[in-house]
């Protein structure tokens, strides 16, 4: 049996007095591809942002490959030390790419390996070129992000994240900011990653991708996991009324 790599237990999160996550439990196995779906504002992005510590949370805890994150008040040294280790294990791809605009594509990818993993520059460069080839951008390495299309930028962002050799990749609506004709190229790269056995949590509205690539689909509604299971079960035979309503809305077009 596969090994648990992420365990979210009773996660509670408030923005001021508004509760956005209500005791969320979620276990992810090594090598699993989990797609998280739900309406905007359901808390799905917040959930994965908690997993790599971009958001503090108020209750519960998150175990990642032996490291543990605890609630918000504890922005203490120990938590920060754990967070540092967790972030080396967990890569993140953002909706808005967030590439460093003052650095070339190659520099974007080598920066963290050189500064954080302390790799020698030539080694980091070789690794970066390999990754950029893999995402199909070998011919763009000396350009600046602003000179690339959205789809290309997002592929660079994926390569940048992979350069840290994470064990888990989080995707926060990676195609939502893209023009429709560029969605495919990014999903293609993600599909490749999934096939190679990368553990992935993907927040997305791309239901076709979810159906095809996901091992498990998780439906979040108002900060609670309402239903989860294999994509076929969720898409073809949802058990909950709200899941049905949501799916009928997003699948109609």
């Amino acid at each position, binding site marked *: 049996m596969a090994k648990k790599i992420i365990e979210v237990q009773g996660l509670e999160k408030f923005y001021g007095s508004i509760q956005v996550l209500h005791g969320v439990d979620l276990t992810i196995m090594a090598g699993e591809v989990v797609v998280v779906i739900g309406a905007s504002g359901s808390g799905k992005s917040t959930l994965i942002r908690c997993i*790599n*510590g*971009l958001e503090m949370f108020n209750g519960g805890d998150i175990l990642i490959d032996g490291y543990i994150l605890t609630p918000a008040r504890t*922005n203490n040294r120990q938590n920060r030390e754990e967070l*540092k280790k967790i*972030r*080396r294990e*967990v*890569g*993140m791809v*953002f909706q*808005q790419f*967030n*590439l*460093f*605009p*003052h650095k070339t594509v190659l520099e974007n990818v080598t*920066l*963290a390996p050189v*500064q*954080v993993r302390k790799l020698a520059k030539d080694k980091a460069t070789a690794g970066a070129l390999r990754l950029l080839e893999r995402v199909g951008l070998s011919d763009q390495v000396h350009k*600046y*992000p*602003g*000179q690339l299309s959205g789809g290309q930028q997002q592929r660079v*962002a994926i390569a*940048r*994240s992979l350069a*840290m050799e994470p064990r888990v990749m989080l995707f926060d609506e990676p195609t939502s900011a893209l023009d429709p004709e560029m969605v495919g190229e990014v999903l293609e790269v993600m599909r490749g990653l999934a096939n190679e056995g990368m553990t992935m949590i993907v927040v997305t509205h791309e239901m076709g991708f979810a159906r095809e690539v996901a091992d498990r689909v998780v439906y979040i509604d108002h900060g609670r996991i309402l239903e989860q299971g294999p994509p076929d079960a969720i898409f073809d035979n949802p058990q909950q009324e709200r899941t049905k309503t949501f799916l009928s809305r997003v699948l109609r077009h």
Partner: protein
Amino acid sequence: MLEDLTNWAPQLLTGLGLTVELTFGGMAIALVLALLLALGRISSSRWLRVPAAAFVELIRGSPLLLQLFYIYYVLPAVGLRLSPIMAGLIGLGINYGAYLSEVFRAGIVAVGRGQREAAESLGMSEGQTLRFVILPQAWRIVIPPTGNYFVSMFKDTALVSTISLAELMFQGQLIASDTFRYMTIYSIIFVIYVVISIPASMGVRWLELYFNRSMSSR
């Protein structure tokens, strides 16, 4: 007048030299202080944030002239005796540092949360994030306004003549009290300041255009 000019030239040039030194020296202090204050003000620690904010408000809430007098005439009473040049440099540096820290802070904030999050998610420490991601982008934003403060500093150095620093303005006053030819000497001083600061301002404007263009092409 030409004859006057040649007679006074050595004295005026000495003064101008000191003015320029004060401008660069004061600015050097101001830049370092401004960066520290700006980082203090955006720090997550209240122990850095509150004192930094209080200091900036204190300085921005009082006249530069008073600050210079305070440093030069009051500090010796508590045992800190500074030479006029040190007092002048520190006074100008502190005053401009406080104003510039607001510019720097705005520049750092303008870089945006996404950049910080991307760096953090790659495992970079706060220091690395600042050094490699935030500050290089903030520089481009703050260079033009900083240039304006530079030009402004050049003119404000005239105030240190009041603490007996023999810069350009002071030399002018000396010549005036010697010769009583106020109109001639102060007109010359006027021209010297303007001839330097107007091209400098134009340079800053060019810099601004240059940075805007190079930013938008990315």
